[in-house]
């Protein structure tokens, strides 16, 4: 029966796929340009009808042989000054003064303009109508000439962009402040400035049937695993979505386990972080229109590593990393443990602690479980409100949250003071590992539920389930919990502690097998020894 269903399902899917493919191929029919200028103009005006931001400008080139021409561009996407000075002026004025004007005839115009007139760097010839439209919409300027079935595409892009500013999500004390911007080209330039190496590759793709969003796959050839690069390309090319408005769209289309609550694709806003990840063999996916760059494969421990660990000296960095693990466990387990200990295992608390907890809970109307759930949910609401509310109102939220729900609820005897302590501790801890704090919320509430039903045993069964789930996940072929389970002993050194940089002379083995050695194994600085050698 089950098999029959599966077969049916497969049949259904494959027929759909076939339809899709046929649909796709029909879209890509060639649509060549005409050599008649007027025909092209009407055609392109028809396409861009009722679009007030499209600019057409008709003019003539040459003084002896006059050739009609027109340009098309989208107002606001091009730098108008450049269009005037570099395109129009050179075609209409500079050409007349130069000797080129004499050589001009009906046949060589295109060639002469391309090779000798236009003083612009990015000029290309396009024959296909659809392609011209795409270029114009991306911000290029198209130049059509009478008698040629080819358009010259000139890059004079320039639009309002945000400056490179420090990102709000990944704040550092030490380290570069710059963050990616919404403009793809700026983002790639930031990466290129970090890694000045011809092996840094940016492969371009267009995704989204309506939005035609530019997406760049960035990797370092020779370090990144070719298989992973191929897999990324394969998954990206399979995306048949309508729109890609943010890299989150891409993430949800390429992740390994969409049904899991854990993220298997990483993101960052900072070029130094992405560069470091690429140097470890990962692949980055840059999306136009968002500063968030995706990195794959993404492992669980990446949430515990920050760029600052590597910029500051290793001793305190290691302690901080251990603290992060502690904070993670606190934020996941604290409310559940509180519920389990106060409801099921009171005998496991030290007597004095038990007495003070019991005294604080004296007279509170709800069981610990209800308290934990209510406080947990209220905290989530406060958090969401704090993010969404306009900044002046945000103050009010924190006052209401801290005073009314914390202080007053306790003094009114509605909620025990220990619960407020536990919840606030949890809330603070969950921001230590900010990048997975959303999954922490899910886990925390689940554990509270399990603790209420089965106490410590429930928590542990839940932990076993979560652990099994996490261990079974993969991100682009790499096990999600990788250096820990399965144990990869060489990579384990950079998990709980942060070793000296000269100790990490090899790249992580998980992502790549290419070019594993970063540097000489013995680079421990030893100034004394060097001095004696110099003498």
């Amino acid at each position: 029966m089950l098999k029959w269903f599966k077969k049916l399902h497969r049949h259904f899917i494959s027929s759909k796929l076939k339809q899709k493919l046929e649909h796709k191929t029909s879209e890509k029919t060639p649509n060549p340009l005409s050599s008649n200028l007027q025909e092209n103009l009407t055609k392109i005006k028809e396409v861009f009808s009722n679009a007030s931001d499209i600019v057409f400008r008709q003019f003539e080139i040459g003084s002896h042989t006059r050739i009609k021409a027109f340009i098309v561009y989208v107002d606001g996407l091009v730098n108008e000054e450049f269009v005037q000075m570099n395109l129009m002026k050179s075609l209409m004025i500079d050409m007349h003064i130069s000797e080129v004007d004499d050589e001009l005839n009906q046949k060589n115009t295109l060639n002469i303009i391309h090779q000798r007139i236009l003083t612009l760097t990015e000029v290309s010839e396009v024959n296909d109508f659809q392609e011209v439209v795409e270029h114009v919409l991306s911000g290029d300027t198209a130049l059509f000439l009478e008698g040629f079935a080819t358009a010259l595409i000139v890059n004079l892009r320039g639009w309002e962009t945000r400056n490179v500013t420090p990102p709000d999500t990944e704040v550092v004390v030490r380290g570069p402040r710059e963050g990616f911007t919404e403009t793809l080209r700026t983002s790639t330039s930031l990466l290129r400035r970090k890694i000045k190496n011809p092996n840094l590759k940016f492969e371009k793709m267009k995704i989204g049937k309506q939005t035609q969003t530019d997406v760049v796959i960035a990797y370092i050839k020779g370090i990144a695993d070719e298989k992973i690069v191929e897999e990324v390309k394969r998954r990206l090319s399979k995306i048949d979505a309508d729109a890609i408005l943010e890299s989150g769209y891409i993430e949800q289309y390429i992740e390994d386990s969409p049904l899991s609550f854990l993220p298997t694709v990483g993101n960052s806003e900072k070029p130094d972080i992405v560069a470091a990840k690429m140097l470890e063999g990962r692949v980055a996916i840059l999306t136009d229109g968002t500063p968030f760059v995706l990195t794959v494969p993404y492992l669980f421990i990446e949430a515990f590593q920050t760029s600052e660990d590597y910029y500051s000296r290793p001793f305190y960095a290691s302690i901080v990393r251990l603290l992060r693990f502690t904070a993670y466990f606190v934020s996941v387990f604290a409310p559940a443990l509180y519920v389990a200990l106060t409801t099921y295992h009171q005998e496991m608390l030290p007597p004095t602690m038990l007495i003070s907890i019991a005294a604080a809970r004296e007279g509170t109307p709800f069981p610990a479980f209800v308290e934990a759930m209510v406080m947990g949910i209220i905290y989530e609401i406060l958090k969401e409100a704090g993010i969404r509310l306009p900044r002046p109102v945000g103050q009010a939220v924190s006052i209401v949250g801290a005073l009314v729900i914390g202080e007053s609820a306790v003094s009114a005897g509605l909620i025990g003071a220990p619960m407020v302590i536990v919840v606030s501790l949890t809330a603070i801890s969950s921001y230590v590992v900010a990048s997975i704090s959303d999954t922490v919320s899910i886990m925390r509430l689940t554990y509270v539920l399990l603790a209420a039903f089965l106490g410590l045993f429930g928590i542990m069964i839940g932990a076993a389930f979560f652990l099994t789930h996490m261990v079974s996940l993969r991100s682009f072929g790499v096990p999600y919990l990788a250096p820990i389970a399965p144990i990869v002993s060489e990579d384990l050194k950079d998990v709980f502690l942060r070793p000296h940089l000269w100790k990490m002379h090899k790249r992580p083995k998980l992502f790549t097998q290419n070019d594993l050695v970063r540097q000489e194994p013995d680079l421990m600085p030893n100034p004394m020894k060097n001095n004696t050698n110099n003498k």
Partner: protein
Amino acid sequence: MLEKGKISNNQFILIFVISRLMLTMAYLPYVNAPPWNQDLWISAILAFPIHILLVLPVYFLTNRFPGQSLIQSVETILGSWGKIIGALYVWFFLHRTAVILRELGEFLKAIPYPETPIIVFITATALFAAYSIYKGLETICRVAEIVAPLVLASVFLVFIMIAKDVDIYALTPVLEDGIIPVIYGGFVIAARSTLSLFLWMLKPFINEPEKIRTTVVLISFILTLHLTPTSITTIGVFGLEQAKILNFPFFHLVRMINIGSFLERIDALFIGFWVLGMCIDIAIHNYLAVLSAAQLLKLKDYRPIVVAMGTVIVSLSILQAESVVELNEFLSYKVLTWYNLFFTFALPLLLLIVAVIGKKRIDYK
């Protein structure tokens, strides 16, 4: 192939060690077995070579039939008659899972949850086992890779923390009743292990089978390293007579820990780790039961029978004994030693002899 995953030798060590340790950590049945005196720690050391000896028949069999698991090689040796022996082994794994499940339930019912029905714990754990079997052998072993070091580390931490309370004179006189009961005791301890069957079932999935000898020795070594201090501390803290009466000697040992009256009552932590370890223990035993049944029935995929087997195991674990006393009767050295020995040593030895006489073997390509 039913199972496509591969496990490393280290994973095999950890998964076996954890499945062997967990019951000892709660019940410690050896106290009520030969040599019946304070020489238990010597028996624990002597179990090391005996343990390795008992694995030998299976070791030779796996060398003779490389790439074949228990069920498959039994069928190669005996033909269709092998199905009966195979069915016996399926029963063995099934029953063992049920026993461990029941012991988990009995412990939880006895100590932290006196009022909760035992079926709750058994069902919850069986559900977890079914889930992890769906995820496959690799997943179970990876979870073991995370949990086992934690459990091992915490056990050794317990030894260190309890060391100041150990009365070393409780271990004297040494060899009070002579060496024979001590050797018998070592034999009983070694015979409880099912390493040979783990090896037989899982060797096809181990990625470095040529290093299996080191692996087996390492396993025996770790077990000895655990059991010797366990017996020394248990008897040293409680004294022999008290240790015999206690239902859960090691658990009570953990309760005794009190360092400077600020590090105390860590038994909650212990129960936590113990439950985690038991989950893996049950998952791997349940997995072996499911895998062997699937191999016996020549299924293409073992997933369809997971839930069915789980149901059988839950019912069996409830029905097999009226009370914990009856269960302990079965688990005592008088029954379990010989029951285990039949499956782990005697039957493989017989099969080995048949295979040698019948000149049956599979050659490496």
